[in-house]
């Protein structure tokens, strides 16, 4: 890990308007993210942890600039400075068209491997889609790369013509990861990538993500609620609560010496796979 900054989020604010009454007038707003700042370094994993509703998913969506497409009256301010090869660029004000070249660099892996893959498309089409959109590869070149990607994520290249329902949850998550890696991204934002998987499969996918990070020099923003998983994969961790980052720092420091009361509460509540811990806790 170098101290090279890849992404610089500054004072990010995201507000969703609330409409009410008969005329559905604007009656208020919900500030999902209340002015947060952090930086992502090249090759590191930044863990974003917090409970449901803390705004961690919204942060991920703000970075890849899809919030406006999801809710057009959302109010966003601040800066998401991406240090692209072609120069620094603030992603927030970009239109969909302008965003396109950077979308190839910043990809997402989603939580639910069941609903994040189109059931009517084959693996070949799913993983090849970003290549079709972002590159000028020929059909044959794309097919080659899809095969290569599938092998990279531990699936067989023979599976290209299968549909998502023919795979298990863990395999589907591997397909989602292959799709995210198709365009050779610099940053992968993974939103609860393993929380829908069985314990034994979670470990496989976590190890895979670490291997791929090493091989391709990826930077991860790893969004999750599971404290043990986040600790395992992250170099640094940001703890979120009510739209704010209450604490950010090296993973070990946060787990061994949490400073903020909320981090302490969260850590104390996490169950440990050790019966002795229960006795210590209950005194």
């Amino acid at each position, binding site marked *: 890990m170098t101290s090279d900054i890849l992404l610089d989020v500054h004072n990010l604010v995201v507000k969703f308007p609330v409409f009410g009454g008969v005329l559905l007038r604007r009656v208020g707003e919900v500030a999902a993210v209340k002015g947060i700042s952090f930086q992502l370094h090249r090759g590191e994993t930044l863990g974003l942890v917090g409970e449901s509703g803390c705004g961690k998913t919204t942060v991920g969506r703000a970075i890849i600039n899809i919030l406006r497409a999801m809710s057009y009256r959302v109010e966003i301010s601040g800066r998401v400075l991406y240090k692209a090869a072609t120069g620094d660029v603030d992603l927030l004000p970009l239109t969909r068209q302008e965003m396109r070249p950077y979308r190839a660099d910043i990809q997402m892996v989603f939580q639910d491997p069941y609903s994040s893959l189109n059931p009517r498309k084959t693996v070949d089409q799913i993983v090849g889609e970003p290549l079709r959109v972002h590159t000028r590869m020929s059909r044959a070149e794309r097919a080659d790369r899809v095969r290569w990607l599938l092998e990279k994520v531990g699936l067989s290249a023979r599976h290209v013509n299968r549909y998502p329902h023919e795979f298990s949850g863990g395999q589907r998550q591997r397909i989602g990861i292959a799709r995210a890696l198709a365009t050779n991204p610099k940053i992968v934002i993974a939103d609860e990538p393993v929380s829908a998987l*069985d*314990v034994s499969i979670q*470990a496989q996918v976590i190890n895979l993500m670490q291997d791929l990070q090493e091989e391709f020099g990826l930077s991860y923003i790893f969004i999750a609620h599971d404290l043990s998983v986040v600790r395992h*994969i992250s170099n640094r961790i940001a703890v979120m609560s009510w739209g704010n980052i209450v604490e950010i720092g090296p993973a070990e420091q946060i787990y061994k010496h949490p400073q903020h009361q909320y981090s302490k509460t969260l850590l104390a509540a996490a169950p*440990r796979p*050790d019966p002795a811990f229960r006795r210590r806790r209950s005194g």
Partner: protein
Amino acid sequence: MNQLLSIRGLRTYFYTESGVAKAVDGVDLDIAEGEVLGLVGESGSGKSVTALSVLRLIPDPPGRIVAGEILYKGRDLLKISQDEIREIRGNEISMVFQEPMTSLNPVFTIGMQVMEVIQAHQQVSKDEAHRRAVEILTEVGIPEPESRMKQYPHHFSGGQRQRVMIAIALVLNPSLLIADEPTTALDVTIQAQILDLMLEMKERRKGASILLITHNLAVVAETCDRVAVMYGGKIQEIAPIDALFKEPFHPYTHGLLGSIPSVDGTKARRLTVIPGSVPDIHSLPVGCKFVTRCPYAFEPCPDIEPPLIEDAPGHWVRCHLYPNGGKPAIPND
């Protein structure tokens, strides 16, 4: 200790178009009075089907309990009539499910749903049912229960809904509470509260037992007295809580414990992994169900199903590595 529930040779099969799915295939399990027993397994291991079989809630068709005994206080629940099992449900054995969002009916108030359980099982006046509903909601920690009774489920947070579910399950003071992934959908801080609440409620009902079904070994470590590990429709290991975490016998349990990253202590650089995935339930191996993923599999494993043997006091394992209660052949690391 007296056994409250004894499951013997339970087999629950599902007859589907793609063949017979042996979801539960010969399960023996005892729950003692006052005990908290954890039933752990991954999806498809048969843990939920075991629980549903106890209350005879298996949808038929396609499912059917084809063999076994479920002895509750000496009575075989599989032999009694529909009316009798209905009396057992709620009064004697009750259940809490994973989804606090869907287990409550959205069109009835919380009060009506708590009172319904009381009035369905006992001849009491509406006022009495109301009084007891307020009482139980107070006990599970719902503030201002009188006014909250008039509200609908969507007014309650996920944690509060699960509290209401626990209230409904415990209002008739059953002897056994079956909790199927009761905290899986909840945030960690809320999860800790709900687990504490369940244990507290159990303590107040002397002799009551809990069967806690979960995929989360950490939750088991925090709450249970004993654990049973299920895989491929069979119990693979049963042990007192300390023994299971200190010295797991079965290679599957080993693998499960190795694949959990830790919150404290030193950080492993890589997680140990159980290779492959849970086998298709329609085509489970003939011998040991874990053989396709087991790093220690040897000659008898694919063809001969090992018996469940007691290798240490109270510590049972189903594995050929323990042929006659000898020393564990797996190095402990």
